[in-house]
């Protein structure tokens, strides 16, 4: 979001004084008066989206596109610093008492009234997307600041946007942004869907195309024309080689697009949802574990506790009882799957806290020894 230069310079002048006041305020001798989190919780009893530090937002509308595709209209609090079309952010929800975050693209270009729209596809086993679909108007959610650099590069180069399924979400924002700012720029969007289960946001895209004749919209229905393939891209858009391309969709679709752009990947920007977790392989004799910052790598045998493996590799992770009681060895797992040696419970592959002494890997792991994680 644009910020006027004068505003940013006055901030810079104010910074030393503000920094000093902030340091004074945070001084431990002022506890508990300076427990900002506690004051915030109290203020949130009156106004649920209040925060001095975090972006929180109120759900002001819910728009159901397809049975498994819903948009949330959100009004963020004043901590939100704006976004560019194509960016995404992390939505934090309360899922059965636990805070869970997932990234979603903003599916609406910045609006004058500041409302945000997230379009969310319900995943078959996704607890967060299910909780997002259950949200009602008036509820409060947590947000991160906007992230990502998925956007059309400035200039006049003609554009080709290729999306499939819910991958259309950043494309809508990008198209809306461009038709206002650069209506003369040549813009083609190929969007794939399956009409038997419904094509995501088809009506909305048709409306956009009607409103802006400069937008060439190609809706590819895989129910009648099969899955989009590289040859079809070239057939739909003969001058594809001259165009700057942006693609977003499921991983098989992204692989297909990459195949089209083999040898000219510099021309293509890709947005993938989330990270690709290492595959779970319970039969592998050992797994690779990335640990800490600066990163150290060690291997742990199947059935061996991560703590023993780390110590055997010469690392010195913090630890205590070694029996799963004291939690001294608790780490934040960024990705990968583990089995609990006491209960045999198998974890998900996302971010969560694990105890090194009672966890054995089922896949390659990425661990952060700070239990709080780095995003505190």
């Amino acid at each position, binding site marked *: 979001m644009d910020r006027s230069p004068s505003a940013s310079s006055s901030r810079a002048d104010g910074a030393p004084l503000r920094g000093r006041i902030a340091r004074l305020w945070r001084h431990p001798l002022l506890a508990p008066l300076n427990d900002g989190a506690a004051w915030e919780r109290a203020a949130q009893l009156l106004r649920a989206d209040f925060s001095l530090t975090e972006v929180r937002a109120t759900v002001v509308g819910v728009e159901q596109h397809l049975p498994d595709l819903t948009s949330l209209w959100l009004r963020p609090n004043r901590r939100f610093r704006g976004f560019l079309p194509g960016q995404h952010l992390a939505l934090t929800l309360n899922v059965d008492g636990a805070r869970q975050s997932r990234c979603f693209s903003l599916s609406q270009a910045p609006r004058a009234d500041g409302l945000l729209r997230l379009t969310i596809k319900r995943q078959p086993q996704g607890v967060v997307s299910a909780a997002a679909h259950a949200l009602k108007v008036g509820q409060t959610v947590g947000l991160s600041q906007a992230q990502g650099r998925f956007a059309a590069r400035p200039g006049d180069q003609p554009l080709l946007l290729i999306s499939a399924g819910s991958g259309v979400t950043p494309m809508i924002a990008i198209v809306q942004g461009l038709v206002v700012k650069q209506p003369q720029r040549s813009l083609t969007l190929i969007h794939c869907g399956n009409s038997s289960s419904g094509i995501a946001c088809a009506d909305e895209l048709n409306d956009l195309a009607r409103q802006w004749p400069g937008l060439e919209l190609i809706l590819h229905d895989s129910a009648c024309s099969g899955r989009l393939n590289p040859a079809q891209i070239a057939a739909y858009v003969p001058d594809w080689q001259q165009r700057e391309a942006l693609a977003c969709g499921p991983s098989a679709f992204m692989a297909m697009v990459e195949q089209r752009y083999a040898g000219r990947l510099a021309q293509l920007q890709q947005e993938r949802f989330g990270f690709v977790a290492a595959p779970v392989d319970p039969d592998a004799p050992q797994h690779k574990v990335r640990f800490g910052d600066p990163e150290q790598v060690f291997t742990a045998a199947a059935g061996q506790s991560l703590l023993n493996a780390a110590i055997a590799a010469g690392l010195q992770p913090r630890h205590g009882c070694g029996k799963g009681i004291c939690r*001294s060895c608790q780490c934040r797992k960024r990705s990968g799957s583990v089995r609990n040696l006491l209960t045999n419970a198998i974890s998900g592959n996302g971010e969560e806290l694990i105890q090194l002494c009672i966890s054995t890997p089922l896949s390659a792991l990425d661990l952060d020894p700070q*239990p709080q994680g780095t995003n505190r």
Partner: protein
Amino acid sequence: MNCKTRLDPASLDALAHDLDQLRLAINSQVGERDARHICRVRGTAQAAAISGRGLLMFGFGPVSWVLGVLSLATAKIVENMEVGHNVMHGQYDWMNDPTLNSQSYEWDIVCDGDHWRHSHNVQHHDHTNIVGKDHDYGYGMLRLTESQRWSPWNLLQPLWYLLLAINFQWGVAIHDIKIGRYLKRRMGKEEFRQRMRPFLRKAGRQLFKDYVLFPALAFWQWPRVLLGNLLANLIRNLWTNAIIFCGHFTTDAHTYSREEVRNESRGQWYLRQIQGSSNLEGGRWFHLLSGHLSHQIEHHLFPDLPAPRYAEIAPQVREICARYGIHYNTGSFWKQYWGVLLRMARHSLPTRPRLAAQGS
């Protein structure tokens, strides 16, 4: 006194299996309800602290003073027992809430959080009631079993206990420094200084808060704030001390020697936790004010299970104990506390181990 139950290896494995199953079943239910509980309790404790300090600072007359003291004492008790102690065990780590994370939580008491995490979570909960290894057993100053060595110092045990109870937060705070080892020259000066540092920092902050900052903010009312804070801390000390002493030092709570626990199996570990702990019976409020340490047995079996769940699994734990012939040590607060005081008085004299036949 009840005899210590010993089980054959097959029964021990079966016991471990039964308890593990119980844990899995209750763990799968943990969720929204537990999150709401801890948030509400924390909010209530903070509200009680604000109203207590408010009454002390800006109230008039003795009634508001007494109410202020009671309110602040309750706030400190709930914050220490139901919030601090339980959060630092990791009972709510699954919530992913950085303000309720076991490794970073800091509580309203002079004991440094990291010291507590080590002396309590690591040492006491693993080595429960092993004489010589569990430093919480007698806190290095009280003799509570025959197998502890007697010295003339123990004759005045009731007096030492009274002093410890009054200053309980200080006893807990210096616990992990291991001053005894320094005095016996088994710890170097540098290590001692390192261990003192977090204690001094935390103690300084607590003293400043209760005896400088808040009295000063009350201007000319400072004496009633200072005295009120002192009394609130005293009430908290006496209460937490009584509850904690009822956890492991009651008449029927057994002790273990280092030899007994060599190569201990998981079943033996569970058995020791049950036989080394004792419960208190009472209503919902009593359990809350004790931080659910009134379910000490369940807490020692599963220290990181959200505490209100202890009351739910207690009947099943009791049933499992009955099945294996293990005594489930429970009773009213006064019965159990009286047992602790008697035990303390008895072992202030040079008691000898009883007949070997009785112990086996």
